[in-house]
């Protein structure tokens, strides 16, 4: 029910706009075309940044970094009672959305989507964002070099979110 309402949101916005296009004198399709044109410019201006980022992320996934992190920290994880299978996901998440989705799928396949680990992985992925990617794209779009406390604040937020996701998610899973 709620899912249906959400899926109707975008068509509803477009429907509203189509009424404006039909009945309002001040709104013409030209403003859509101009705006869309600026979207193209922005996309292509960002391409060089994306190339650099994607090359880095692609190297990182190919190098076996996620598995290495998992192996390095698994003794520590066992002591605190967290499944080490979550670690690659946590470490790749800030860099790459597609990379972390692939890792999430592999957690689903290896541990089961309805296992405790699968559940926690979902909560972690759902409540965190690709911090480095977002920051890099936003600031390189306007050529800003001094980003001040953006990255520390965003990374600290993500760290707290991951801890909360494990605690809150674990509580919800155990409760049923």
């Amino acid at each position, binding site marked *: 029910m709620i899912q249906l309402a959400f899926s109707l949101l975008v068509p509803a916005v477009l429907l509203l706009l189509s009424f404006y296009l039909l009945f309002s004198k001040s709104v013409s399709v030209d403003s859509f075309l101009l705006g869309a044109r600026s979207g193209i410019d922005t996309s292509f201006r960002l391409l060089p940044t994306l190339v650099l980022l994607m090359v880095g992320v692609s190297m990182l996934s190919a190098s*076996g970094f996620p598995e290495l992190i998992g192996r390095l920290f698994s003794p520590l994880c066992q002591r605190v009672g967290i499944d080490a299978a979550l670690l690659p996901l946590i470490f790749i998440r800030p860099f790459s959305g597609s990379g972390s989705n692939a890792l999430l799928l592999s957690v689903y396949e290896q541990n089961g989507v309805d296992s405790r680990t699968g559940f926690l992985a979902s909560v972690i992925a759902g409540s965190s964002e690709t911090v480095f990617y977002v920051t890099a794209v936003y600031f390189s779009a306007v050529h800003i070099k001094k980003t001040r406390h953006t990255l520390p604040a965003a990374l600290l937020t993500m760290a707290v979110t991951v801890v909360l996701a494990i605690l809150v998610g674990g509580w919800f899973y155990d409760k049923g």
Partner: protein
Amino acid sequence: MVGRIFSVLCILSFVSALCTGRLSLLSDAVLEGAARAVTLTLSLLGMMCLWCGVLSLLQKSGVLTRLCRLLMPILRRLFPTAAETGEGIEEIAMSISANLLGVGNAATPFALLAMEKMQAKNPEPDRATDDMVTLTVLSCASLNLLPTTLLAMRHAAGSDRATAVVLPILLVSAAGAVIALLLARLGCRRRRTGC
């Protein structure tokens, strides 16, 4: 800053490739990454066009001004400069709403337009303004009411209770958003008092 992120990625890759003995895979990964940046840009191009166009229609029609007026009490606190000058505040409102409502692919173009508007009035063009930092940190906390992509992935993986994660995700990401705003604004305040 992109340079620094890239360097960290590169060094991490080399060290872990050395440890796992996968050095030979790196060069293919480089080419693949560069190609993927292009496919990503192209596959997002249509959506960038659509949402930037829709945004300018919404602005022309006055719908956005009304939405903004509604949200002003909150926006003024979080983005004081943009709220006062009006530069980029409508785009910020749209980006946050898009994130909340789960239209994540629209949030990015809106936020980028907001950054451009704010940059136009930035007295120090190579340094982020308070509002830019707040917007970016908030976008890095993934607050949304319904994580549609994730639910689709859980369904596809054959979950019996795919939606069981919705409530914990909402709670955690709401807490994350509050923390993000606190950290972003506290960082801005520290500078103003000159400590």
